[in-house]
């Protein structure tokens, strides 16, 4: 077993793809502001959750990509997480064929075959739990892997230490926990997916799902079930860096994501203490509860204050 060694690689921030059905103009303007102001290194764009939403953002994609690149951001094209229908399958093949020099993130193995032999990324809904899988995918061209949410930080560090591909972990936001063919947003409105009336657009950060006794539990985003709690690894960043982890993903929310990104950047740069940064994050999201349990090898909803590693 390889023991993770501390590394001097600079820490990088990735802004994940917007997972929600935002109005197209808001989606575009959000990315323009990210391009202009957010201290992130990489930005993912593209529809991951429901292909029915793709046509809304498609007209704005070229402009958004251009603006992000002009600002010096690496742009990654994220692909669909659950590929089933002929339309979705064709779209994934077209994405792989037409990406030009842009890197694609495979979120389903439906697109992985078309990416083999060229540099690409693996998203968190492709199961990479161990060095065997990492080695196989790296051998086919995977350069960066964002790990599944439930993987503990110790496992992530072990995978990073293999030196096979850059390892990214999910450090902020509601976590995508489960995928389905069924749309729970539609179901909650007594609709089917085919005639959904795009009710998911009502909930820019997902639809709250509470237990019967009123405790916040989950959040529904179309066919995807997310955590209710927001992951916050600000307080763990110093430990994670020491463990050799270098790249951290922030999931977009309707809060001030530029401010969120600055908290992470400042903490990584040592300009801000993690505990203080966490307190400021809580101020930015006054309604949110936070969690870091997965990183600590615990239940995902837990918030653990012990040191990692």
């Amino acid at each position, binding site marked *: *077993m*390889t023991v993770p060694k501390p590394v001097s690689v600079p820490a990088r921030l990735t802004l994940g793809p917007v997972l929600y059905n935002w109005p197209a103009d808001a989606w575009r303007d959000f990315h323009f502001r990210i391009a202009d102001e957010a201290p992130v290194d990489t930005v993912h764009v593209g529809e991951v959750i429901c292909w029915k939403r793709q046509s809304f953002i498609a007209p704005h994609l070229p402009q958004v990509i251009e603006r992000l690149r002009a600002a010096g951001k690496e742009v990654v094209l994220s692909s669909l*997480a*659950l*590929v*089933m*229908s002929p339309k*979705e*399958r064709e779209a*994934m093949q077209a994405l792989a064929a037409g990406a030009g020099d842009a890197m694609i993130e495979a979120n*389903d*193995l*439906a697109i*992985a*075959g078309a990416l083999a032999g060229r540099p690409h990324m693996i998203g968190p809904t492709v*199961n*990479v*739990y*161990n*060095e*065997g*899988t990492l*080695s*196989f*995918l790296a051998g086919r061209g995977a350069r960066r892997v964002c790990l*599944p*949410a*439930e*993987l503990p930080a110790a*496992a992530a560090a*072990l*995978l990073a230490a293999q030196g096979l591909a850059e390892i990214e972990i999910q450090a902020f936001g509601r976590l995508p*926990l*489960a*995928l*389905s*063919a*069924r*749309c*729970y947003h*539609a179901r*909650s409105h007594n609709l089917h997916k*085919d005639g959904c009336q795009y009710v998911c657009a009502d909930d820019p950060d997902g*639809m*709250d*799902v*509470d*237990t*019967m006794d*009123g*405790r916040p*539990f*989950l959040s529904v985003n179309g066919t995807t*079930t997310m955590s209710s709690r927001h992951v916050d690894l600000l307080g763990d960043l110093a430990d994670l860096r020491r463990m050799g982890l270098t790249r951290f993903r922030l999931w977009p929310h309707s809060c001030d994501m530029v401010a969120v990104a600055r908290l992470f950047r400042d903490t990584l740069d040592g300009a801000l203490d993690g505990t203080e940064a966490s307190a400021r994050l809580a101020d930015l999201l006054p309604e949110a509860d936070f969690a870091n349990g*997965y990183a600590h*090898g*615990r239940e*995902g*909803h*837990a918030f653990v204050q012990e040191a990692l590693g």
Partner: protein
Amino acid sequence: MRGPVELVCPAGTPAALKAAVDAGADAVYLGFRDETNARNFPGLNFSRDELAEGVAYAHGFGTKVLLAINTFPRAGQPQLWHQAVDDAARLKVDAVILADLGLCDYAHRHHPELRLHLSVQASASSVEAIRFYHQAFGIRRAVLPRVLTVEEIADLCANVPIEMEVFIFGGLCVMAEGRCALSSYATGKSPNMNGACSPASHVRYIDKGSKVESQLGGFTINSFGAGEPAGYPTLCKGRFEANGRLSYLFEEPTSLNTLSILPRLIDAGVTAFKIEGRQRGRAYVSNVVRAFRQTVDAIGRGETPPTFDLDDITEGGRQTAGAYERNWR
């Protein structure tokens, strides 16, 4: 009509294996008694010796034995999973059912003669994903995730060069299997890493006088009136409040039953038909396997299948054809 179809039946224990074989299973599937299989529950599964005996019994009746090694090996500790694959080959099982890419790679490189099936936990739901596994590892059969319609399955069968297996009865995952972290979010234990969803160790029933609440990892999953049987709190079958309404948001406590659409699935080109329920007892296995055996045989002879009432062995007495019908979505 296609060639003969294969009835793949659950064997959670040696006793269930015998029951399945005796009731007419073409194949049984089972797992080792550890975290390498996705039904890692107390009191279930097989030791190496029990597997050897099970293989001998099953093969004596011409029944195949398929070994599920369908969790994802722990980072830095793949030995338990590698050993399971090695032992499967040594004990002459007819195929192993795998989900992890790295483990597929290991089996393909170290045991090229071992037949590989792709587990439902691999969530391969498209022609391209299945081809990927076939080309990389020589996978011979894929168990399809319970997210596809009959039409989509027919399209798959027509466009991939390997056998397809589908679930026809029993517990129903409403999420894409292998891509669901709901259980670990609530309990820290996941199907992918620990082989258990909504594990009993994290279940509590709280008596509140006029009602009983079922909890998982401290989260209330459902509530039952006095005298009402309290169901098991599987997370995705619970009642939750969303959009101002209390409902079975993800799925009712219901079981998959495809008896009525079996001819359509056979016509779609599916090779193997899988009954869920390794956690169920001998009586369940005998009843369900016998019903499907007679149905499949009748369809094969071009006859109208007899009708079976399986209400008393389905979850909550409710049944659904699930994702096979498009309006389920």
